[in-house]
């Protein structure tokens, strides 16, 4: 007499429901706190559609999504790539797409992975809590789609497309990294939008007012710089201050900025998020097996696809393409559990406060309060470094050779850990570009500064393209200086200067511009 839930690899809605019920019982036992789940079964064509819209169920129209769709479609139809088994959306209820092609085992795995793993991460992690409002995102997407469609009707598809192109080009610079945002607003967004339009335009006009204000005459000597502090959020800066944008254009800039903000936490928690979800599907499936709910065949099939997911090709393998976030995340999560349950002497030395503690509580704490960068710095243990055989190389263009700076050994652990953590630091991965000044009383030109990190220059070709987009948003001349130790190493202008008079370098750079 067996109480296996299923023995065949065919899935039915009934079986999915039963698996989901059992998994939710286990998740409850492990104290996973989740949004309610909405599991949607879709076909492969629909999966391709979902891919093209970054997984979102609704989205505004833009050619770049079409391009992505065509790319996916071509790749899939020619058999060059498979599709993901699942996509999950950070919303409340949490929407997870399951492909109809999956076997019963895959469906169960995906439910454990997405509907309980990712879902609880979305609900618990501080970045998601701060930056996204899961209950409002779908409403906001609908608002954005309708608003942009209306703009297309009123101002033409081309005008809207150009604007979106420009916004997308600087989408990575649409977030206040150091300020906490208000949650995305829901239905009142539409009502408030009207109000905002009028108000914003007034503000901008005020900034550019040319009639002298008699009260401010005494201030003229001070010539305040604008902005008073460098601005890292370019999209926000243009939304509020670009002189020539019309109200509807500001609203579109805002929409792109909100989208950038919504995806911001996902970029910073890839290792943790995937590691967490992988850890939980692994734990839950094993628990299902221990409770004799699934067969050995089922378990074998699971082990096979699980090990494919967490496979890390070594650096010299032809399939190597960076560190697999699933592997790293999963190994670390597993290791934290091990340190809590069976600490060695080494663990006690490295992690005195978590060795021997309650593993569920420790993992929960780690999931809630870290992002990739800090998570690695805090929890990457010597054992994981040894298991993955991590080593750190230093590539300095001033040397003829690449140096091996540290390897997985006693004196190298700290260095490797730091370097790996830095690798996930978003502000190092993306060039640090900020609005430096605007020539308010002169030609209204905008000056941006790129502060070099580790002497890394800007890629010139793309920078020249992006600056054109910035010029479109700003409406007047744009200059971009790439600065290393207060010296201008590269400069970009849009429109390109017609005379080749030498650029006069600015004498000093404000101290808070030197990178983090």
């Amino acid at each position: 007499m067996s109480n296996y839930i299923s023995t065949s690899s065919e899935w039915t809605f009934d079986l999915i429901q039963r698996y989901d019920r059992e998994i939710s019982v286990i998740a409850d036992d492990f104290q996973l706190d989740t949004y309610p789940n909405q599991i949607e079964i879709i076909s492969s064509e629909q999966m391709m559609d979902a891919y093209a819209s970054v997984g979102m169920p609704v989205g505004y129209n833009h050619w770049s999504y079409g391009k992505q769709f065509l790319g996916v479609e071509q790749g899939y139809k020619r058999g060059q790539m498979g599709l993901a088994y699942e996509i999950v959306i950070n919303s409340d209820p949490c929407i997870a797409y399951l492909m109809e092609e999956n076997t019963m085992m895959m469906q169960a795995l995906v439910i454990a992975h997405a509907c309980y793993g990712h879902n609880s991460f979305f609900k618990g992690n501080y970045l998601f809590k701060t930056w996204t409002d899961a209950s409002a995102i779908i409403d906001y997407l609908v608002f954005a789609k309708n608003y942009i469609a209306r703009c297309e009707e009123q101002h033409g598809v081309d005008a809207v497309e150009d604007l979106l192109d420009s916004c997308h080009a600087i989408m990575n610079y649409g977030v206040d990294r150091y300020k906490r945002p208000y949650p995305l607003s829901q239905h009142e967004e539409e009502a408030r939008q009207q109000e905002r339009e009028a108000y914003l335009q007034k503000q901008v006009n005020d900034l550019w007012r040319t009639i002298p204000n008699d009260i401010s005459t005494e201030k003229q000597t001070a010539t305040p710089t604008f902005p008073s502090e460098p601005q890292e959020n370019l999209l926000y800066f243009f939304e509020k201050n670009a002189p020539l944008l019309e109200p509807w254009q500001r609203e579109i800039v805002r929409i792109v900025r909100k989208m950038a903000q919504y995806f911001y936490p996902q970029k910073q928690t890839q290792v943790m998020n995937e590691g967490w979800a992988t850890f939980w599907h692994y734990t839950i499936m094993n628990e299902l097996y221990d409770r004799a709910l699934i067969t050995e065949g089922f378990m074998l099939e699971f082990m096979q696809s699980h090990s494919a997911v967490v496979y890390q090709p070594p650096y010299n393998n032809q399939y190597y393409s960076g560190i697999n976030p699933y592997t790293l995340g999963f190994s670390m999560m597993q290791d934290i559990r091990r340190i809590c349950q069976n600490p060695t002497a080494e663990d006690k030395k490295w992690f005195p406060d978590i060795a021997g503690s309650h593993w569920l509580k420790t993992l929960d704490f780690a999931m809630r309060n870290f992002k990739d960068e800090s998570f690695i710095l805090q929890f990457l243990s010597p054992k994981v470094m040894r298991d993955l055989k991590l080593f750190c190389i230093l590539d300095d263009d001033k040397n003829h050779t690449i140096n091996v700076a540290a390897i997985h050994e006693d004196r190298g652990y700290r260095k490797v850990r730091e370097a790996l953590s830095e690798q996930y630091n978003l502000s190092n991965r993306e060039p640090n570009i900020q609005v430096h000044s605007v020539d308010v009383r002169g030609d209204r030109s905008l000056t941006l500064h790129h502060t070099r990190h580790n002497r890394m220059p800007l890629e010139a070709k793309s920078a020249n393209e992006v600056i054109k987009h910035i010029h479109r948003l700003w409406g007047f001349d744009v200059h971009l200086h790439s600065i290393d130790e207060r010296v201008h190493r590269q400069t970009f202008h849009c429109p390109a200067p017609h005379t080749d008079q030498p650029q006069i370098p600015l004498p000093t750079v404000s101290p808070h511009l030197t990178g983090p």
Partner: protein
Amino acid sequence: MSYIVDRRLNSKNKSTVNRERFLRRYRGHIKKAVSDAIDKRSITDMASGEKISIPSKDISEPSFSHGEGGIRDRVLPGNDEFITGDKIKRPQSGSGGSGHGDGASDSGEGDDDFVFQITQEEFLDFMFEDLALPNLVKRQLAGNEEFKTHRAGVSHEGSPGQVNIVRTLRSANARRIALTGKKRKALKVLEEQLADITPANDALEDTCSLKLQAQIAELKAKIKGVPWLDDFDLKYNLQVKYPVPQSRAVMFCLMDVSGSMDQATKDVAKRFFLLLFLFLQRNYEKTDVVFIRHHTSAKEVDEQEFFYSRETGGTIVSSALKLMDQIIKDRYPPEEWNIYGAQASDGDNWNDDSHQCYQLLTENIMPAVQYFSYIEITPRDRQALWHAYEKVSEQFPEAFALRHLVSVADIYPVFRDLFKKQAA
């Protein structure tokens, strides 16, 4: 509690708009690919879809990124040979990564083309974009082959399947009201009288009440006797047939198959005919094609024979024109058909025949056809036939065109030139 939703039946073409936006944005690229493809294609699959490739750099979306240089710390997995302090030669960029950590520099500049598929419909759209049939006065015929039915009110007769329930019940209701009106009025009066004397005070009233009750029962029976639904009430939806006017076109392909036309020349001609055929098909619901080939005498043939059988002999072009004229008179009355003529030849003709061609064209054929195009496929100088046709073209500048082409690559440009949209 989880909800499980089956979305598989929802629409799967959510990306259609975005896809269309993409095609719109890169229509220049696509058009070029299409026009290249037309030259390369074999004739049999002129109208299938096409794989389009666009250089990746043309469609990239720029964003700020780090360039080469500077100091980079990089952590790699799977160390198998290094210890701290090792120095590794910097790999040449582009060399296949045989270790030495260059696997991590995933700066593989995607110089590959972006490749995607467009459908046959889209292919043809791009192929014939901005083209229009000249003199597109579609002669329409009140056709007698195709009919459509549409609703035309209600009638008293029809088949049970067409019963209009609402109308039927409404009319039944009206009839019942009309037929029982008097009786119901009388009934009401009687019922009031009865109510006045109930409960009965004496015997007189008692008999009165009985009488009234009998009358009421009788009236009620009569009212009930009126049928609820009568044959008379039945209303049917009326469907009427009306003929669908159809635009029809016939295309005459005329080709010289005399000894001077070799297979390559015929191939060029065939491609031209095919383009024209596809184009007409998009403009008319029904398109007939008549193949006429000629040397010294003309003959109507089927497609296979038209393109592939060889004959030799001299050339008398007028024979083909005569046959075309005959066929128009016999089978394709100009008031019912849109007639298009396309003639391909290498320009050879029997010396004194060209004048006859001129006469046939101007007097018989040109008044009947919408458009007549003549292409001469020859690298040589023009001859008598061309000059005769030039005169025709002067007389009918709107409806007659002649072009000269040399190789396969000329076909599509010449075709576009012939059918380009005239500025209104």
